[in-house]
């Protein structure tokens, strides 16, 4: 009669050991992955839920045209980046987009409304490629890590993604949580997910 109980305790102990080891691997500090820290990569993947959200991607096109809506449809009317991300002569972003959302017309707005620079185009790119891109001062607007973290945590236009107005779905979480994730990513080594299958 005692044997099943002994077997149960042994099995439960073994399971705890296995689960504990698995948990340590998931958020461990020692496992490396393509030269980068797995925890750092995991943090960036979490931040990637924001970066790859339509609220962000719509104005980070790789070509000259922004997209719009949760379905990332081509922007209507047809507008282009222009020389400074503010549209073409005669049809600047500010023709329709102003300092604040105006829900009566369904037009989003922010004082800094513009397209991200072409060097920061994200649409269609892998999370790993975006990670390398945003760390690269040659492409991210000459931002070092402190400036980058300030940008994602404090920039009003970045923050618009959580207050998009109208029927637009906000980016997940909050800007503060996104900023905290990015800081934890930076503090853990700023590792980037590999582009190839893991």
């Amino acid at each position, binding site marked *: 009669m005692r044997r099943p109980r002994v077997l149960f305790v042994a099995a439960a102990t073994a399971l705890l050991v296995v689960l504990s080891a698995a948990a340590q691997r998931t958020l461990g500090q020692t496992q490396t992955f393509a030269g980068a820290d797995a925890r750092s990569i995991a943090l960036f993947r979490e931040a990637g839920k924001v970066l790859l959200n339509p609220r962000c991607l719509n104005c980070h096109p790789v070509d000259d045209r922004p997209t719009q809506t949760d379905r990332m449809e081509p922007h209507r*009317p047809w*507008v282009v980046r222009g020389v400074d991300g503010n549209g*073409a*002569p*005669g*049809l600047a972003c500010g*023709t*329709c987009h102003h300092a604040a959302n105006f829900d009566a*017309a369904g037009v989003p707005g922010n004082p800094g409304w513009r397209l991200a620079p072409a060097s920061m185009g994200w649409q269609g790119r892998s999370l790993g490629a975006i990670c390398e891109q945003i760390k690269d001062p040659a492409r991210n607007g000459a931002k070092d890590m402190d400036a980058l973290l300030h940008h994602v945590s404090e920039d009003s236009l970045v923050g618009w993604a959580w207050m998009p107005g109208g029927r637009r779905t906000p980016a997940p979480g909050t800007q503060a949580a996104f900023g905290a994730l990015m800081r934890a990513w930076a503090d853990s080594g700023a590792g980037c997910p590999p582009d190839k299958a893991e």
Partner: protein
Amino acid sequence: MGVFSINVNGASRSVEVEGDTPLLWVLRDNLGLTGAKFGCGIALCGACTVFMDGKPLRACSLPISALGKSEVTTIEGVSGPEALAVQDAWVARDVPQCGYCQSGQVMSAIALLKEIRKPTDHDIDLAMNGNLCRCATYVRIRAAIHDAARALER
């Protein structure tokens, strides 16, 4: 309701409206300036184009409370060499068909010529993309803008 003092076509005007009233409504309903047209109300068609501090603006896209001290120019008050050149070219080319969109087209054309004195077809397409014409007078619009640009060279 609030009282807003706004500068339109060089004159100070006072209106009592809700702060979220679109500028277009104020121009048309409160000030009787009906040159700017209501087309879509969501900044997609360009029929309501006016100038704010000399730059094109879809009047449906801005609440009156956000106008501040900016100067508004409607087609009733627009002037200057570009405006005259566009007006002459529009008449010479007989551009309008039904005419509903044309005040917006004219304002956008003037704005383009203020920025680019001799626009290419591509420049014109990019600037005028936001002004729809259900009569499809686009070919005449483009030709008239080229005519106006040539007139401004003289």
